[in-house]
C-alpha cells in the first residue's frame, strides 16, 4: 500500500495491509502533527505533494527496504492538505519474520521518505506561515537542528 490520503489516515488499515502469515513482527511509525516548532505555536500543518511521483518514490523505498532486509510487506501512507494538530501526517508499517528487520526497515523507510519523496510541509503558526524544508512530521527530530548538517542554513523558505 503506497498512497496519499486527503482524509484522516486509518492506522489500523495501514497495519492490516501488511498482515502476513509468515510475519512474526510488525513495526510501525506514525508521524504526528505537533503544536510547537522552534518556539512557535503551531495552529495546523499543510502538506502538498507531487501526485504520481510521490507514490512512485514511496514504492521505490519499499523495494529498497525489501532489497536490504527480509521483510514480508511494507505500507506507506502520507496525508495531504490541511492537517489539524494531533493527527497522523504519515504512517508506515513493516511486517517481517522477526522484529529486528521490521524495526530497521521501518526506520529506513521514514528516513528515505524525508530525503526524497516530493511532499512539502507548510507550518501555519500564530502570526504567520512558512514552508519547511522537509517532508513529514517526525516528533522530536528537527532536521534544521541536526549538528553538522550543512543544509540547515536553508531549511526554511519563507514566503515573500
Amino acid at each position, binding site marked *: 500500500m503506497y498512497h496519499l490520503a486527503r482524509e484522516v489516515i486509518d492506522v489500523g488499515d495501514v497495519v492490516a495491509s501488511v498482515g502476513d502469515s509468515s510475519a512474526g513482527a510488525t513495526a510501525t511509525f506514525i508521524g504526528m502533527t505537533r503544536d510547537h516548532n522552534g518556539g512557535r505555536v503551531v495552529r495546523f500543518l499543510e502538506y*502538498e505533494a*507531487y501526485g*504520481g*511521483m510521490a507514490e*512512485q518514490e514511496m514504492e*521505490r523505498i519499499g523495494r*529498497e527496504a525489501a532489497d536490504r532486509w527480509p521483510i514480508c510487506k511494507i505500507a506507506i501512507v502520507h496525508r495531504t492538505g490541511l492537517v489539524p494538530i494531533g493527527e497522523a501526517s504519515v504512517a508506515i508499517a513493516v511486517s517481517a519474520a522477526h522484529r529486528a528487520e521490521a524495526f530497521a526497515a521501518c526506520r529506513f523507510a521514514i528516513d528515505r521518505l*524525508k*530525503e*526524497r*519523496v*516530493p*511532499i*512539502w510541509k*507548510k507550518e501555519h503558526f500564530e502570526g504567520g506561515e512558512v*514552508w519547511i*524544508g*522537509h*517532508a513529514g512530521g517526525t516528533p522530536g527530530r528537527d*532536521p*534544521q537542528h*541536526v549538528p553538522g*548538517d550543512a*543544509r*540547515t*542554513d*536553508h*531549511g526554511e*523558505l519563507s*514566503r515573500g
Partner: protein
Amino acid sequence: MKVRVRFFAALREHVDRAEVVWELGPQQTVGDLWDALQNAFPGLGGLSGHVAFAVNQEYVDSAHCLHDNDEVAIIPPVSGGSSHVPSGA
C-alpha cells in the same frame, strides 16, 4: 520544443502559478531551462542550488537533455534544504 514545467510549495508561491508551458530550442538541458526560468521569474533567482529536478516524475541532474512534451518539475527542498539530486536517483 515545448515542455510543461511544474512548481510546488514555496516555488509555486514565488512564481504565483502551479505550471507553465515553456518553449525551448533543440538540445536544451534541464540546467538551460532553469537558467531561462530564473530570468523570466526573478523570484526564483535566490533559490539556485537549493532545488532538485525531475523529468517525467524521475529525479534527474541539471545536465539531463530535454525532449518535446517532457514534464519538468522544479523540486524545492524536501529534506532540510537538500541542494542535489537525492541519493539513489
